[in-house]
């Protein structure tokens, strides 16, 4: 049984129902003036965290602050991090991490570039084999994968069956670092610094169990207060250089690009590509793909957060400011590639990039979604909809009248919970 992605702190929750309306899978209800989660409908998108005015929604595993331990701490950096410090060079941000106690850093943009290469390779081969249907959907956003698994399972074979970039960091990295810095393997502590509320979930309950070997996951907003103080100091120093031996894969000029919507497909050697961000619009696109449209597209980058990962719920600065700062960096350094293809093709052929998870496995994690309704039940829903006002007022605790009617039929609510129905009767 999967653990819930989010929890509601009843002592903070006022029952305002903002989260009920924001939830894309209609997984939240108000019961007894407090929000409750229908766990098997939650895809961990973090919309509720974003809209809650009281801070009552907690991501299931929030590591909170970074506390330097005895262990050899390694930061696995989402390239979003650099855009959180407008006007600061990426190397100064890295130095800041060093100052607050990280012994080493690994920049994810190298893995993102490898992933992009593998995606291109897959697309080119798929043109020949026709093994997977067009359009292929990017596997990078975990929320999108879960959304498809829960609500559009017949589209699962559209998801590019390659490991996500963060999953490419295998246990090998830990041994490599242990060797290089002469520390015991058990003493290497990997911290994933991420803007993504969804990745704050440990491997155990994720649909992509082949992902992380991370020991802890830190939201960028969690370390921001510490880090920005350190960065501020560094900015005012005159000359300082980041010790190169302290990082595997320096961020290159392209790094700030990855977190932007459209960043994954930018520079891809595939022409029929498309990027869509923000859950509402993404859902419209998925519905159309489900309808058999967009077959002329080869690859679609879908991101649950608007503006892409820059808009993640664990970022520290506003997404538009972050975008502007990322654009400045790109303008300064341009975009380029750095990985040699010949070497990558060899490991591609060895199957190194391929995901070990079958798409159907993902669906199982959701217990197959909701059990199907009978025609009789569907008729009951339509009948209930005749009796209630249809104004989606939400007083009953459901997001809209249709969901309320479904709840009644499924035994999760009673018709008298509708204020207007009750008023009419009295």
């Amino acid at each position, binding site marked *: 049984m999967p653990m819930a992605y989010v929890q509601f702190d009843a002592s903070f929750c006022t029952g305002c129902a903002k989260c009920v309306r924001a939830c894309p899978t209609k997984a939240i209800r108000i019961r007894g003036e407090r929000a409750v989660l229908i766990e098997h409908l939650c895809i961990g998108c973090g919309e509720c965290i974003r809209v809650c005015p009281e801070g009552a929604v907690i991501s299931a595993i929030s590591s909170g602050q970074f506390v330097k331990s005895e262990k050899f701490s390694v930061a696995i950096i989402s390239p979003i991090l650099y855009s959180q410090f407008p006007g600061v060079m990426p190397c100064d941000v890295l130095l800041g991490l060093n100052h607050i106690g990280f012994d080493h850093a690994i920049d994810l943009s190298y893995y993102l570039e490898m992933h992009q290469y593998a995606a291109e390779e897959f697309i080119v081969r798929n043109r020949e084999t026709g093994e997977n249907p067009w359009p292929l959907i990017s596997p990078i956003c975990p929320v999108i994968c879960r959304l498809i698994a829960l609500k559009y399972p017949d589209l699962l074979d559209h998801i590019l069956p390659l490991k996500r970039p963060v999953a490419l960091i295998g246990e090998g990295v830990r041994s490599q670092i242990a060797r290089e810095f002469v520390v015991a393997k058990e003493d290497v502590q990997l911290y994933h610094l991420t803007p993504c509320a969804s990745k704050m979930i440990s491997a155990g309950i994720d649909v992509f169990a082949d992902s992380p070997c991370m020991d802890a996951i830190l939201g960028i907003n969690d370390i921001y207060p510490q880090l920005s103080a350190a960065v501020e100091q560094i900015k005012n120093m005159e000359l300082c250089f980041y010790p190169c031996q302290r990082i595997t894969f320096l961020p290159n000029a392209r790094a700030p690009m990855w977190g932007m919507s459209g960043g994954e497909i930018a520079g891809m050697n595939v022409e029929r590509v498309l990027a869509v961000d923000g859950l509402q619009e993404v859902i419209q696109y998925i519905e159309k793909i489900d309808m058999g449209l967009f077959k002329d597209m080869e690859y679609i980058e879908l991101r649950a957060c608007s503006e892409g990962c820059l808009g993640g719920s664990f970022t520290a600065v506003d997404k538009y400011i972050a975008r502007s700062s990322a654009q400045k960096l790109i303008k300064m350094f341009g975009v380029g590639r750095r990985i040699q293809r010949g070497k990558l093709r060899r490991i591609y052929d060895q199957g190194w990039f391929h995901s070990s998870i079958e798409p159907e496995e993902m669906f199982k994690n959701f217990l197959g979604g909701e*059990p199907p309704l009978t*025609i009789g039940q569907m008729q009951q829903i339509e009948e209930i909809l005749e009796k209630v006002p249809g104004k989606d007022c939400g007083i009953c605790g459901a997001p809209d009248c249709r969901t309320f009617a479904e709840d009644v039929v499924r035994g999760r609510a009673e018709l008298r919970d509708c204020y207007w129905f009750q008023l009419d009767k009295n």
Partner: protein
Amino acid sequence: MSALKKSFYIKGRDFTHAGKASITVQQMLKQLGIATDIVRRAAVCGYEGEMNVVMHGGDGSFCIAIASDWILLEISDNGPGIADIGQAMEKGFSTALDEYREMGFGAGMGLSNIERNADYMEIESTPGKGTRVEMLFQIPEA
């Protein structure tokens, strides 16, 4: 058991809301646990039919009836009608305006797509009065 019936109004030339009826119907069919292949075929037919009304039609209606072993879709409009149904069924034959083609519609595949995806279809049309398309999908016993 009697069939579940539902109908929608389709507004001609309204591209913003075009496709709403077929998406709603698709969701209903999914909730009923109908096999994905049938849901997809019905949704594709519904969508093509709905787009035909939006592109050529005046206003129209989209009606669906669902029973345990069949789905019936009926889409009718008071638009210009079809002069030669045989010709309209041909792949690539289209009378859509150029501006719609630029939006990616009007490739002349609509009716032939419906014919391919529905288990049974019937078209009735009177030029100047309107068109009615009926589609039937069978649900084999599980």
